[in-house]
């Protein structure tokens, strides 16, 4: 397709900037001078994918090597997909506009389960057979990384290689191995066998899964010399780890349209529902000097006038005060706004507080997740009612009139009492506002509460727990609604069909591959977009494949059951998860990593918080 025809096509769809390429800092290389072409695919829209930090890191890192050209690919929105299929345009990379079928690697990042149909759709648009087994040496290798890889069994049939954990090192080791194998005449089978020996590389086709009569897993057996368990990789020293000095700056507005500076990986907290809090262990910080200089460099090279700090819980950063002091100096001078997350500022100096006061504040948000202290203890969420009320009080006195709170419904051990607690907490905030003598004049308060359905995830202490049924959820939602008596509280409860499917795929096994393929063939894609999600098609797919989704999501799993992800080693041991699960059922909290080590297993790397001096 020539340039002119392509341009006409772009003008006929929404947001042509999604497909045009050519942005500031996008990397163009001479394809005849590189050895490896890598198509980095984000299985969602441009706006979402371009906001993702992991993709930016790997894009820059791969391209920092002269022998690799890494390009970006996003899922085309339905209007453009239609045009592509009509005009026989295969899925192309934004930089070169070449069909990715010509590339050496097609790599997906799997950030959420509901993107799986997009992975299949993108493979199909690229002109590749969906199944790994049907792709010989003619086709690119299809690899995947990201948090969902901790149980990517539902995608096992389609992906050649999964990367466990952080990709900076392992991805390049595999690319180097590929170059070696290419030199001596490439055999896919031989290559995969060799790659499986690299730590962090999981080749699903090298594992045989057998099932018991009741449908549970009997065994997972490696073939040949493949390792029995595959261990995730981490980057030990964050100060010397690669970090991009520039981001591709999009033309169109994306979800997080700003510079993003990473401050640490992992989280000390151990909230029991939170997968990220476990699979990214242990916490590894960057020093504030490095964070500061990387952040400055990013702003200079992108021209962004907004920067945010990224981590799972920035207020736990030990060097926050010196960092902010340093960053505020140059950000204010250069009219750059520093987006601060809601921080605990009790022990900051007067001077810093004064400076922060001038920074544009984001909205007031809390994530208590549960309505009563008992249930917050069960989930190990370290937020108390007093903290929320006192922070709200200060904020209201400072002129704020609205607050947003996030909760979950269907948590293990939850009773109606806990749901009532959600409504009561909202009411207390409202009452407190009206009791303030110095509240903002003439304005009423608005408390918005968002309640999502809990999805149990692998590698969390709640991996053994069932999700609630649809009927139970409806009953709980109605009950919660009935508990709210004031119009000052705005309660929003998400449509939950996607949460149910998410739970199935999060804890699913390889047999779901067939369901995925069938749903995809029926037209399912962009399942996380309400306007695209088609639950009837999914239901049809399950019943045609003879698979009961409830088997995966609604069942309490015994501690000794073999889970589909048990051969993957994310450093947190199953014994630890079991211990934590028992503590949850005893309403008992666990101290964070800096208060007391709970021997989760993540100290095996000899890095990070486990070895901090306390």
């Amino acid at each position, binding site marked *: 397709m020539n340039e*002119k025809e392509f*341009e*006409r096509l*772009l*003008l006929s769809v929404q947001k*042509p*900037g999604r497909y*045009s*390429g*050519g*942005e*500031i800092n996008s990397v163009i290389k001479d394809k005849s001078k590189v050895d490896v072409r890598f198509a980095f695919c984000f299985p969602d829209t441009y706006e979402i994918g371009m906001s993702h930090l992991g993709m930016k890191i790997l894009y820059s890192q791969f391209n920092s090597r002269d022998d690799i050209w890494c390009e970006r690919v996003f899922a085309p929105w339905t209007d453009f997909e239609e045009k592509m299929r009509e005009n026989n345009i295969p899925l192309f990379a934004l930089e070169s506009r070449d069909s990715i079928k010509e590339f050496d690697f097609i790599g997906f990042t799997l950030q959420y389960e509901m993107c799986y149909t997009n992975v299949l759709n993108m493979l199909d648009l690229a002109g590749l057979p969906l199944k790994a087994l049907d792709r010989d040496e003619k086709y690119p290798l299809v690899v995947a990384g990201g948090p969902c890889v901790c149980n990517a069994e539902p995608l096992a049939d389609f992906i050649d290689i999964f990367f466990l954990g952080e990709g900076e090192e392992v991805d390049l080791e595999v690319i180097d191995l590929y170059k070696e194998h290419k030199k001596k005449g490439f055999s896919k089978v031989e290559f995969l066998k060799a790659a499986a020996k690299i730590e962090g590389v999981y080749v699903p086709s090298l594992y045989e899964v057998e099932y018991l009569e009741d449908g549970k897993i009997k065994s997972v057996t490696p073939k040949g010399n493949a390792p029995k368990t595959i261990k995730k990789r981490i980057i030990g020293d964050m100060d010397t780890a690669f970090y991009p000095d520039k981001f591709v*700056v999009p*033309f*169109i*507005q994306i979800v997080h*349209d700003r510079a993003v500076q990473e401050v640490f990986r992992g989280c000390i907290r151990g909230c029991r529902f939170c997968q990220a809090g476990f699979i990214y262990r242990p916490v590894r910080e960057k020093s504030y000097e490095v964070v500061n200089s990387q952040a400055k460099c990013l*702003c*200079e*090279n*992108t*021209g*962004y*006038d907004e920067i945010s700090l990224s981590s799972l819980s920035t207020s736990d950063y030990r060097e926050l005060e010196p960092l902010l002091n340093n960053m505020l100096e140059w950000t204010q001078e*250069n*009219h750059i706004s520093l987006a601060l997350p809601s921080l605990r500022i009790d022990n900051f100096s007067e001077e810093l507080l004064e400076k922060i006061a001038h920074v544009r504040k984001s909205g007031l948000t809390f994530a208590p997740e549960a309505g009563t202290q008992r249930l917050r203890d069960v989930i190990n969420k370290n937020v108390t009612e007093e903290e929320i009320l006192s922070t709200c009080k200060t904020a209201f006195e400072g002129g704020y009139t609205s607050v947003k709170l996030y909760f979950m419904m269907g948590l293990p051990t939850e009773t109606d009492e806990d749901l009532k607690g959600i409504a009561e907490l909202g009411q207390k905030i409202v009452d407190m506002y009206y009791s303030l003598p110095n509240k903002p004049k003439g304005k009423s308060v608005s408390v918005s509460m968002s309640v999502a359905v809990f999805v149990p995830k692998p590698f969390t202490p709640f991996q053994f727990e069932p999700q609630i049924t649809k009927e139970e959820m409806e009953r709980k939602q109605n009950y919660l609604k009935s508990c709210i008596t004031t119009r000052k509280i705005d309660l929003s409860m998400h449509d939950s069909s996607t949460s149910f499917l998410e739970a199935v795929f999060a804890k699913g096994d390889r047999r779901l591959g067939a369901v995925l393929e069938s749903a995809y063939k029926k037209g399912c894609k962009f399942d996380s977009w309400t306007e695209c999600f088609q639950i009837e098609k999914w239901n049809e797919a399950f019943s045609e494949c003879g698979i009961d989704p409830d088997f995966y999501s609604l069942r309490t799993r015994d501690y000794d059951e073999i889970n589909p992800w048990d051969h993957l080693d994310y450093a947190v041991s199953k014994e630890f998860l079991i211990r934590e699960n028992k503590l949850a059922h005893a309403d008992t909290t666990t101290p964070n990593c800096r208060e007391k080590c709970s021997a989760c297993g993540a100290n095996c790397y000899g890095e990070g918080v486990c070895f901090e001096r306390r």
Partner: protein
Amino acid sequence: MRDVRVFYRKKGAMKFVSHLDMNRFMTRLINKAKIPIWFTEGFNQHAYFNFAVPLSLGFEGQYEVLDLRIITPDYSNEQLVLDLNKASIPDIEFLDAKEPILKMKEIVFAEFKVIFDELNVELAEKINGFFAREQIITQKTTKKGGTKDIDIAPLIKKWVLKENELTLILTAGNENNLNPNLVLSTFFESEKIAPVDYSVIRTMIYDKNLNPFK
């Protein structure tokens, strides 16, 4: 503090960047190039710059105009162009920077080149006939959501068809801006022919005397 008028070309991928997105693009480009630009004061401080008449999505622009306010007196126009180009991408190319002579609102006309992929004799005759009309009526949606008939002939200052290239000088600016796409779609509709493919380049903007806008 002084005002500078910058001239640039917009092409390639940048053709798909809407006027709204251009604002964000320029803000970042100016930051990246470290231009000593003046920031507005007050609560929402932002770099001070102004675009001349917006360019429609999909059009190339060869004489695009942007006014900046510079705070460093000894920062030369040559340096400004150099710095902007160094920070920019090939699809936005800065050509020149000068002291503004006219005001933005003195822009009255714009010149476009409409390049047809293919143009046969029959179609060429129809085009000539169309522009020779005394009245060219088209429908415009009103603010209230209805439509009303307007005559665009008086807004067409000049037209020349040479081979497959149609040069149009149309009224531009805030009040009576005429978009060549509207002219073309009116043509196809009134002649009841299926639209043919074409590309558009805005080649110049003029003042009321058809002198290039400076």
